[in-house]
């Protein structure tokens, strides 16, 4: 609930001050009075008033001069001017100086109540608007990104510093690591946050559809274009455009994209008018763009244009200390959305989660927790509620040899069959690892 609306009455006549004071006190406002502009300005400097009701003609500094000074201090201040000698000139001047309204004394009681009610409504709406804005921003805030590991802390630091700039960003990381969430966090912490963040999933669209989606189209540009349509670049004006799966776009689209990034101007499909849009680009991919550049499937100039800042999100298996934090976060989230009372997780189940590699990363963990809450007993998540119980590498292995083989395979896979890194991880020398590969007849994938 909102605090009491506060009023400051400025009038040199004591009887006017007293009358207004009594009137507004009975209406439940918090009321203060000042006998001249100088005192009023001092009070405004020390305290905050929602509405200032001031006489125009006062000895010393008059109401209009005071209005100018109040507006210089706070341009959003609501000041209502009163006068017993109404002239069109003073009314126009007061409104030009930024007065909320202008009234002639004495007022009809109904007029006065309406006037203050309108001003109060504006204040309440403004407060509400600010609160909603804050809520919207907080919905997209970095707080949704969970991670206490040094790797994630580094990512968050990068997000914070890059958000302040206008530089293009490429976010890389495996599928399910939360690339879009990072893009949202960059946008939400940038100066563009009050403007839209427009997302385009490039991989989901064919070349012609993507072109029309990004640049928009004019009515009749192609079959089915029955009306003019704004493109995503146009929608992202003053905001941010997030191009997910950027590696999937065709060479033709890469050329067009490069041109738009360089000039910030484009034409709608079938259009003739140049459209300018001021947007920031954030891209995401789970592929290695540098390798694609080397292979000639991604334009080098576009790569360098996009890759001003690169943020890498490590896979979940490389930051296992984040798993308990994430698991508890998802439990809270789903309990709230399913209107359930708080559910805990059995320590053995948590241990099992920490042992799992999560090829699908955070998304997989999230789905796993949601499933466990749905099928579980509603009080505690047990190992049996998790779909990983039968996948445990330990479960079907009995001999030490089998265990060694399984472990070597998993390490080799983890380091993409890089023998030096794998042997280092296993704590053996390269020759020993080669011997083990030969012994267990292990083969690198094609």
């Amino acid at each position, binding site marked *: 609930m909102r605090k009491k609306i506060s009023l400051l009455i400025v009038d040199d*006549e004591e009887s006017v001050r007293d009358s207004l004071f009594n009137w507004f006190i*009975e209406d439940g406002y918090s009321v203060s009075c000042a006998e001249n502009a100088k005192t009023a300005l001092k009070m405004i400097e020390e305290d905050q008033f929602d509405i200032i009701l001031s006489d125009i003609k006062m000895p010393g500094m008059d109401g209009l001069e005071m209005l100018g000074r109040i507006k210089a201090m706070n341009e959003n201040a609501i000041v209502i001017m009163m006068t017993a000698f109404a002239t069109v000139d003073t009314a126009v001047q007061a409104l030009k100086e930024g007065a909320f309204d202008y009234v002639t004394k*004495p007022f009809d009681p109904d007029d006065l109540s309406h006037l203050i009610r309108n001003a109060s409504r504006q204040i309440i709406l403004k407060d509400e608007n600010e609160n909603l804005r804050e809520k919207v921003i907080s919905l997209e805030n970095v707080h949704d990104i969970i991670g206490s590991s040094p790797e994630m802390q580094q990512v968050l630091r990068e997000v914070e510093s890059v958000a302040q700039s206008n530089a293009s960003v490429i976010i890389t990381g495996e599928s399910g690591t939360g690339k879009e969430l990072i893009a949202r966090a960059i946008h939400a912490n940038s100066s563009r946050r009050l403007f839209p963040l427009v997302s385009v999933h490039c991989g989901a669209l064919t070349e012609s559809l993507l072109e029309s989606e990004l640049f928009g189209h004019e009515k009749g540009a192609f079959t089915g274009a029955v009306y003019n349509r704004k493109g995503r670049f146009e929608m992202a004006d003053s905001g941010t455009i997030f191009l997910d799966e950027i590696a999937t776009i065709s060479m033709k689209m890469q050329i067009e994209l490069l041109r738009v990034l360089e000039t910030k101007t484009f034409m709608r499909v079938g259009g003739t008018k140049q459209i300018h849009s001021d947007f920031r680009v954030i891209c995401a991919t789970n592929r290695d763009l540098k390798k694609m550049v080397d292979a000639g499937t991604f334009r080098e100039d576009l790569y360098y244009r996009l890759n001003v800042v690169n943020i890498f999100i490590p896979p979940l298996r490389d930051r296992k200390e984040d798993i308990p934090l994430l698991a508890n976060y998802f439990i809270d989230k789903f309990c709230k959305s399913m209107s359930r009372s708080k559910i805990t997780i059995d320590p053995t189940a948590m241990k099992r989660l920490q042992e799992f590699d999560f090829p699908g990363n955070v998304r997989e963990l999230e789905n796993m927790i949601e499933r466990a809450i749905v099928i579980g007993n509603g009080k505690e998540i047990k190992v049996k509620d998790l779909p990983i119980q039968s996948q445990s590498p330990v479960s079907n292995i009995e001999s030490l040899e089998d265990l060694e083989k399984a472990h070597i395979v998993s390490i080799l896979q983890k380091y993409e069959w890089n023998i030096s890194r794998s042997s280092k991880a296993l704590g053996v020398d390269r020759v020993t690892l080669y011997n083990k590969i030969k012994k267990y007849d292990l083969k690198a994938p094609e």
Partner: protein
Amino acid sequence: MQNPDNAIQLISLGSFDKNLMLNTTKALEKIFGRIVYYQQVYQDLSVFFDANRRQYNGNQLLQFINENYAKEGTKTVGLVNVDLFIPILTFIYGQAYLNGNSGIASMYRLGNERYGLKPNPQILEERFIKEVVHELGHCYGLIHCHQPDCVMRSSTYVEDIDQKNSTFCSHCRNLL
């Protein structure tokens, strides 16, 4: 037993119909559950008259009642049958010191005849009681209420007075 120290005092400055005052007193006793005293005094109201506005200054009258008739622990309402104003408003039906000991109420604008209608003593009495209860409500610390039928709802026109009850809504009653 009612405590005479927490009484309500009505002071009429000018003559009021006996039945009207009797009914008003009874109604106030019922609504507030306190002893109500009524006293008629003779006071020259011309000292409160403002020749420019051709009305009586409500601020000065309220101050006069407060200084001459109000007693600690008793709520005093001065009753008049003249047109009241305060410097910033064209007219008022009454006013009171919020959480204070005194208030004033005028019957001048409450009669149907002021609006070109046939006089109706019953309606006049109802409006008058509502106005006195409203000002007493302020004396007891109540501010204007947004409940449409609560007596503490602010009224600009007699139609507004007609729409509300002479009693408090549950919220205001709890605050009394």
